[in-house]
C-alpha cells in the first residue's frame, strides 16, 4: 500500500515539475528570459578589488529604494501650496509608518549622494573612464547631476519654511544667468514670485522629468558596462613575466567574455585574473547594498526627516540654510559678492567645472592608468576636492555662527 501511495505522490510531483518546465519553456520561448539571465549573471569580472566595485550596484539599489519610498510618499502627498504641508504633517503625526517612510526617503537620498560620489571617485582614481569606456563615464556623470537635481527639487516639496525659502533661493539663482536669467526664473516659478505654479512645476520635475532621464541613463550605463566589462583597476593588468607582450597575448586569448573588445587598448584588454560575477561578485554587491539599506532603515527610524512649520512668505526672521550637499555651492555664493561675480562664480566656474567633470575622458587622453603617473589630472582634481571640502567646512562654521 505504502509503495503505491509513494508512487502516486512521485507521479504527481513529476507531473507538477513537467507542468512547471513546460510553463517555463513557453515563457522562455517567447521572452528569451533564460538567455537574458545567463548573459546578466555569467560573466567575468577582475579578481582584485571586488569590494570597490560594489559601489555601482549599491548606487542602483539605493535609487530603487528611493523609487519605492517615493511611491509610498506619493500615496499621501498632495502637491498644492494649501495641502502639501498638511499632508506631510498628517504622515508625520497620524500615520504609524509615515515618519519612517519620510526618514527612509531623506536618508536614502543622503546615502545615495555619498555612494554615487564614492563610485565616481573610485572610477576616477582607477582611470576606468579611458578607452573604450568614455561613454560609461559620461552617462555616469549625468546620473550624478540628475541625482543632485532630484535631491534639490525634493527638498522644495514639503512646503514648510525650509523648503519654501530653498525654493526662493534656488529659483532666484537662475536670475543671475546673463541675458536669459529672468526668463528662466519666470519659467520655473510660473510668474515673478514663488507660488502654486512653482510647486506644481517642481513636483513634475521631481517625479516625472528627472526620473525619466535617470532611468534612461541608468539603462545606457548598464548596457555600456555589459558591453565593455568591468575595468577594475590597473593592478589587474600588471605584467609579471620577462616578456610582457607574450603574457598580454596569452591573457587576451584565454580570457572569458566580455573581455576583450576589439577597440580596447591592448595592454588593458583583459585582466590577469578574473572572478565569476555570479555568485562571487554579486554576493559582495548584495552584502554592501543590504548593509546600506539596513543603515538607512535605522537612520530613517531613529532620526526621521525634519518638517518645519508651514511656509510663511511674510516671515522676516527665518534664515534659510542649504542641504549639506549644497553647502559648498552656497558658501561659494557668499564669497562672490555682486551680480557680475555671482554669474561668474555660479555659471562660469561651476559650469566649466561640471563640463570638465563630464568630459574628463576626452580631456585625459594619455594611456597612463596609475594615479601617480597622471599628475596632470590628479593635481587639478585634488585642488577641486580641496576647494569643495574647504567650502563645506566654512559653510558649517558660518551656519554655526548665525
Amino acid at each position, binding site marked *: 500500500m505504502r509503495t503505491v501511495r509513494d508512487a502516486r505522490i512521485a507521479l504527481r510531483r513529476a507531473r507538477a515539475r513537467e507542468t512547471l518546465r513546460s510553463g517555463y519553456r513557453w515563457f522562455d520561448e517567447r521572452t528569451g528570459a533564460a538567455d537574458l539571465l545567463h548573459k546578466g549573471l555569467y560573466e567575468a569580472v577582475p579578481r582584485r578589488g571586488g569590494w570597490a566595485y560594489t559601489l555601482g550596484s549599491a548606487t542602483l539599489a539605493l535609487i530603487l529604494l528611493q523609487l519605492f519610498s517615493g511611491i509610498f510618499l506619493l500615496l499621501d502627498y498632495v502637491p498644492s501650496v494649501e495641502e502639501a504641508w498638511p499632508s506631510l504633517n498628517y504622515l508625520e503625526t497620524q500615520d504609524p509608518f509615515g515618519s519612517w517612510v519620510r526618514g527612509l526617503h531623506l536618508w536614502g537620498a543622503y546615502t545615495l549622494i555619498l555612494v554615487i560620489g564614492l563610485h565616481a571617485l573610485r572610477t576616477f582614481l582607477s582611470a576606468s573612464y579611458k578607452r573604450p569606456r568614455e561613454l560609461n563615464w559620461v552617462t555616469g556623470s549625468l546620473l550624478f547631476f540628475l541625482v543632485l537635481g532630484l535631491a534639490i527639487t525634493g527638498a522644495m516639496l514639503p512646503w514648510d519654511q525650509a523648503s519654501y525659502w530653498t525654493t526662493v533661493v534656488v529659483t532666484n539663482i537662475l536670475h543671475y544667468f546673463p541675458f536669459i536669467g529672468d526668463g528662466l526664473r519666470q519659467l520655473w516659478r510660473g510668474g515673478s514670485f514663488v507660488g502654486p505654479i512653482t510647486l506644481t512645476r517642481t513636483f513634475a520635475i521631481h517625479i516625472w522629468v528627472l526620473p525619466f532621464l535617470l532611468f534612461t541613463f541608468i539603462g545606457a550605463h548598464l548596457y555600456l558596462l555589459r558591453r565593455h566589462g568591468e575595468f577594475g583597476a590597473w593592478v589587474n593588468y600588471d605584467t609579471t613575466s620577462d616578456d610582457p607582450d607574450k603574457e598580454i597575448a596569452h591573457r587576451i586569448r584565454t580570457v572569458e567574455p566580455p573581455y576583450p573588445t576589439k577597440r580596447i587598448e591592448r595592454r588593458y584588454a583583459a585582466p590577469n585574473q578574473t572572478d565569476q560575477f555570479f555568485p562571487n561578485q554579486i554576493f559582495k554587491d548584495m552584502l554592501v547594498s543590504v548593509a546600506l539599506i539596513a543603515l538607512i532603515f535605522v537612520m530613517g527610524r531613529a532620526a526621521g526627516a525634519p518638517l518645519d512649520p508651514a511656509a510663511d512668505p511674510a516671515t522676516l526672521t527665518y534664515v534659510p540654510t542649504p542641504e549639506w550637499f549644497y553647502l559648498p555651492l552656497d558658501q561659494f555664493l557668499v564669497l562672490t*559678492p555682486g551680480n557680475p561675480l555671482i554669474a561668474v562664480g555660479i555659471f562660469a566656474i561651476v559650469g566649466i567645472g561640471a563640463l570638465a567633470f563630464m568630459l574628463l575622458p576626452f580631456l585625459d587622453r594619455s594611456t597612463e592608468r596609475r594615479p601617480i*603617473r597622471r*599628475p*596632470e589630472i590628479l*593635481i587639478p582634481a585634488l585642488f577641486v576636492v580641496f576647494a569643495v571640502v574647504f567650502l563645506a567646512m*566654512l559653510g558649517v*562654521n*558660518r551656519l554655526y*555662527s548665525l
Partner: protein
Amino acid sequence: MTANPLAQTAVGGTLLSNGLLVAIVALVHIQIATYITGSCTIAWVSEAISIARGGDERHDRLATSIVRSWAYIFAFGSAIGIFFVMLVLLGFWGKFFVALQQITFGAFFFESIAFLVEVALIYTLYANWERLRRYRRARLGMLILLNIDLFWQMFFIDVVASFMLTPNGGDANLLDQFLNPSNIPLTIHRTIGNVAWAGAVLAFAGAFQYLRASRGLEPAAAPARAGAPVRSVGAMDADEAPAEPPEVRETRHWDWVGQWGAIWVVGLTTLQPWVGYSYAKEVQLHAYPAWYDMMFGDLSNVFLFQLTLLGTIFTVGTAYFWRRMKASGATHHRRQGVIAILLAVVTLFAAQPAWFAWTYADVVAQGLARPWWQGGLLNPIGNFIPYKVGALFALVFLGLASVTSYMRAYSRDEMKPGRVGRRNQGLLLALGVVVSTMMIVMGVIREHSRQPFLISGELTIQHQQTLNNQPSQLGGTAR
C-alpha cells in the same frame, strides 16, 4: 566711503613694547614652530614613500635630517615662546594676557597638553631614530602621531589668535571660541602655510648644501647622468654609488631636496589665495574695522606688498621649475618659461594700488576721489573686486599649471638628477627668503589690523596700558 574712525585712535606705549620686541620674539618663535609643524608632514610623507619603495635612500635621509633639525631648534623655539609669554605678555601686557587666559583657558589648557606630548614625541623620535630602523612602520606611526599632535597644538593657539580678531560678541563659551568665524579658515591657512614654509626651508637648505657640495667641482666633472631618471636615485644602487665621487653624490641628493621643497612650496601655495580670500571675507563680516584697516586704511599698502610677495613666490618657483626642466632637457620646459612670464605680469597687475596715496582716507581728504585720468588719485583697475580677484584666480591657475607640468615631467622620468648649474640654486635661495618675508608681513598685518584693540571690539590697547600704568585701578572699572 569713509575712513575707519578707530584706526585714527592714537596708540600709546614705546617702540620697544609695541613693535620691535613683540615682532622679533613672536616672529622668530612662529617661524621655528611652523617649520617643526610643517616639516613633520614632509617627514612622514618621505618616510612613507621610503618604506613603500622598499627603502628609498633619499627620502630616508631627508626624514632623518628633518628629525635631527628638530632636536637642534625645538628647545630654542620653545624657550623663545616661554620668554614671549613670561616677559612680553605678562610684563608689558599683563592685564590683557590675564583677561585673555581667563576667557580662553580651555584652549590654553589643551595647548599645554599638546606641547607636553610634542616634547615627549620629538625627543623619543630623536633619541631612538636609528634604533628604530628595523621597525620603520613604528617610526612612521610615531611621526604621524606627532603630526596629529602638532596639528591640534596649532589649532588651539589658532583658537586664541582668531578669537582675538573675531570674538563674535566675546562669548566665553568654549565651543563658540573654537568655532569663532575666522578660526576654521585661519587653521586651514596655517596648516597649508606651515608645510609650504617647511618646503621653502628645504628648498633653501637644499640649494645652500648644493652650492657647498659643488663648490670644488668643475662643470664638466659631473654632468647630469643621461638617461638616469630621478626615481632611480632613490634606490642609489650599492654597487654603483661608490664609483662616483662623494661630492657628485651629494650634489645629486641636494638637487633633489631643493626640487622636493620647491614642489611643496608652489603646490601648496596655489591653495592659499583661495583660503586667504575666505579668511579675509570672515574678517570683513565679523571684524569690519580690522578688515577696513587692511584694505583701505594704514595697512592697505602693506597688504599690497603681501600680494606682491605672493606673486613673487609663484614667479620664482616657476622660474626655478623652468630652468630645472631645461637643465634636464624635459619636454614642455618652454611652456614653464611662458607661465613664469605670465605670472610676473599677473603679479604686476595684482600689485597695482587702487589709489595713489597711503590710504583711501588721504585721497578723500585731498578731494581727489576720482579716476587718475580725471586728475584724481583713484586707479579703478587696482580695485580688489573684480580686478584683483581676477588676478588672484590667474595666479592660482597659472601656479597650478606650473606645478602640474613639472610633476608631469617628473612622473614621465624626464627629470635627470645631478649637476644643474649653480645659478638655479639662487632661485631656490630667493624662494626661501620670499616665503619667510611673506610670513612676517602677514603676521604684521594680522596683528596690527586689530589696533587699537587687543581683542577686537572688546579690549583696547589704551585700556590695557592705562590699567598697567596705574596699579591702583587694577580690577577696577575700565575707563
